[in-house]
């Protein structure tokens, strides 16, 4: 019998092509737009016009389209933790929490209950099947778009039932394909950054509206006060821009944020360096892992060689301190240098991940 696939359609070009490819591959496809955020947004994410676009594309593909309202759950699992993590001095990644709790949990379970064999999304990543029959989240062939980092938390059960139809595409070719198929969304701009935060207002306005941001002072490592910040909660370890301190002999970075006393400490690059990074809440693609890996600490950052231990990674070479709250993702191999278009090794996949402490 034809497999039934529920495909998440955001109203963007990536998921539009994903749906088109699934239809072409002969699946019985139904499209769903998840209504996640009802507030202001630059991308118009989750707006009525985005839903209209998804519905229009579904109509072009001659598939049914539905809207699932996960607004409450998005608020509970993504927006509130985003605010709380900032409040406690961490640097959250809401896309990861959305994938963890909404797209690959709620949506996944909903699809199963409704009788679908699989779900699909328009993410740039692939799912590899290893020789032992287990699955891994593999990098996209487009290193500039690769989203395996934000999908690192998927376990075997989910990996075995998810389709990522565009993982083998690079963005320019995908856009051309959308154009060739005459899909309404072919020319739509890429979504940027966090979907529920506007570029004009930024994190400052968003968090400010949700309960107190605290002004703080900037001090050097020897305790000399050299400046001020409007919101201590928004300062991130490793940050260099926006500090407005002058008269320093070398570039200054944030090396510590003390929220209790509202003190931001800055120092030269070397003070930012660490030999290891602790972590919590590890998740594994298959089995718990310790040993040598390549560890990536941001969505499009470089993966550095390190030894993964039970509760920390020990870097082979000192590297910049990682803000608490960021996800560490463990890969089996070194990818090509970030930002180049050289092909990524075919078997470069996620072993697991955790949250930096």
């Amino acid at each position: 019998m034809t497999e039934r696939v529920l495909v998440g359609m955001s109203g963007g070009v990536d998921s539009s092509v994903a749906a088109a490819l699934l239809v072409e591959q002969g699946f019985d496809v139904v499209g769903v737009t998840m209504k996640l955020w009802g507030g202001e947004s630059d991308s118009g994410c989750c707006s009525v016009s985005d839903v209209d676009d998804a519905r229009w594309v579904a109509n072009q593909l001659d598939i049914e389209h539905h809207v699932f309202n996960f607004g409450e759950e998005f608020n509970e699992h993504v927006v509130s933790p985003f605010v709380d993590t900032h409040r406690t001095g961490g640097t959250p990644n809401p896309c990861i929490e959305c994938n963890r709790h909404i797209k690959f949990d709620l949506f996944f379970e909903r699809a199963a209950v409704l009788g679908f064999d699989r779900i699909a999304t328009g993410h740039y990543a692939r799912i590899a099947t290893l020789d032992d029959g287990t699955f891994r989240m593999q990098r996209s062939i487009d290193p500039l778009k690769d989203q395996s980092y934000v999908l690192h938390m998927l376990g075997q059960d989910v990996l075995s039932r998810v389709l990522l139809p565009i993982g083998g595409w690079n963005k320019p070719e995908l856009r051309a394909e959308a154009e060739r198929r005459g899909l309404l969304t072919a020319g739509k701009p890429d979504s940027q950054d966090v979907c529920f935060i506007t570029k004009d207002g930024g994190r400052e306005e968003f968090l400010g509206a949700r309960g107190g941001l605290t002004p703080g002072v900037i001090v050097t490592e020897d305790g000399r006060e050299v400046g001020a910040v409007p919101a201590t909660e928004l300062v991130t370890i490793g940050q260099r821009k926006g500090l407005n301190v002058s008269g320093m002999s070398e570039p200054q970075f944030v090396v510590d944020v003390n929220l209790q006393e509202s003190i931001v400490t800055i120092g030269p690059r070397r003070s930012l360096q660490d030999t290891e990074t602790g972590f919590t809440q590890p998740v594994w693609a298959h089995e718990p892992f310790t040993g040598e890996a390549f560890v990536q600490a941001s969505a499009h950052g470089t993966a550095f060689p390190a030894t993964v231990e039970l509760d920390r990674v020990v870097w082979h070479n000192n590297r910049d301190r990682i803000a608490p709250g960021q996800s560490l993702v463990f890969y089996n191999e070194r990818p090509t240098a970030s930002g180049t278009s050289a092909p990524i090794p075919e078997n470069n996949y996620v072993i697991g991940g955790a949250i930096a402490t």
Partner: protein
Amino acid sequence: MSAYLDHAASSPLRPEALDAMLPWFSEQHANPTASHRRGRRARQALDEARGVLAEATGFTRGEVVFTGGGTESDNLAIGRGRPAGTIIVGATEHPAVLEPAVRQGAHVVPVDRNGIVHPEAVAELVTDETQVVSVMAVNNETGVEQPIADIAAAVHAIAPEALVHSDAVQALPWLDLSTAAAGVDMLSITGHKIGGPQGVGAVVVRDGKMPDPMLVGGGQERDRRAGTQNVAGIIGFAAAVQASLDDRSERLARIDRLATRLLDGLTDQIDGIHPTVDRAARVPGIVHICIPGITSEPLLFLLDEQSLACSAASSCASGAQGASHVLDAMGVDASATAPLRLSLGWSTTDADIDSALAIIPPAVARLRDGNRSTT
């Protein structure tokens, strides 16, 4: 197997309405304000349609103002530029009443567990400053009837000049408004809930009580609503109303029987299900139930797959299911239940009920099993 149980959202067009409209899409196309004989025919047809709506509502022909539908009628009745505190509305009103009222600082009257607005509760808020009081005749989600004649009497006893309006969009197929809405100054009605076309409605307003028009320039509808009338639509609307006046007693008895069969059948087959309001409190055609242990969004998905058309609480513009302000106001905790509105109308048959009884219980069972296995 399929069934259409969403008449409260939009009823299929009655054949009488279609037949009446067809000539007005072809040979009879003139503007009703034109002075030539074709124009005069159109104007005459509009006046005859006015007569039908007047009879159905207990108003006079001259008091019928055609509009683009229920929302326009409601907005017109609430009016604009009213000082805060001079509008009083029920908590379970349709958004077409609630939004313009609340934007102008209206008082909102609470409802009881059945969703009923009590005349005493309204009277408590009425002062000699009160300009408009609006309480719907029949609620669009639950089908509950409101005591609007009593409310009108209570309001006018305190403030004789206050305008009492009632959104009678859902009431028109079921109630004799000439008695149910006695004493009410303004009623909103619409075509597509009664087997007429969409995009046409009317507000009927006692002479001399008309709020300021929203559309001006052209003088149509005696300056109460400018713009060339939707002649074919109005004629279809009136034909549907006439048909439903003609078959009212037979239709109400039939639909009451069908709705009872539906509710009894669902109650037999689904554990824990209960009707949201008492039978005595509602019109026959709207069956609203709450199904514990599941949510309505996946339920509607499964029902739609089986071609059963019905509704949950409310759909927002994106098509997502939202929480119901009606159930909230009634104090119904809908968080762990699926509210479901099955609404019947002139074309509903036993076959629709058979289908619904065959489709809904297995869908509920499947969601309940699924929820147990995944949580």
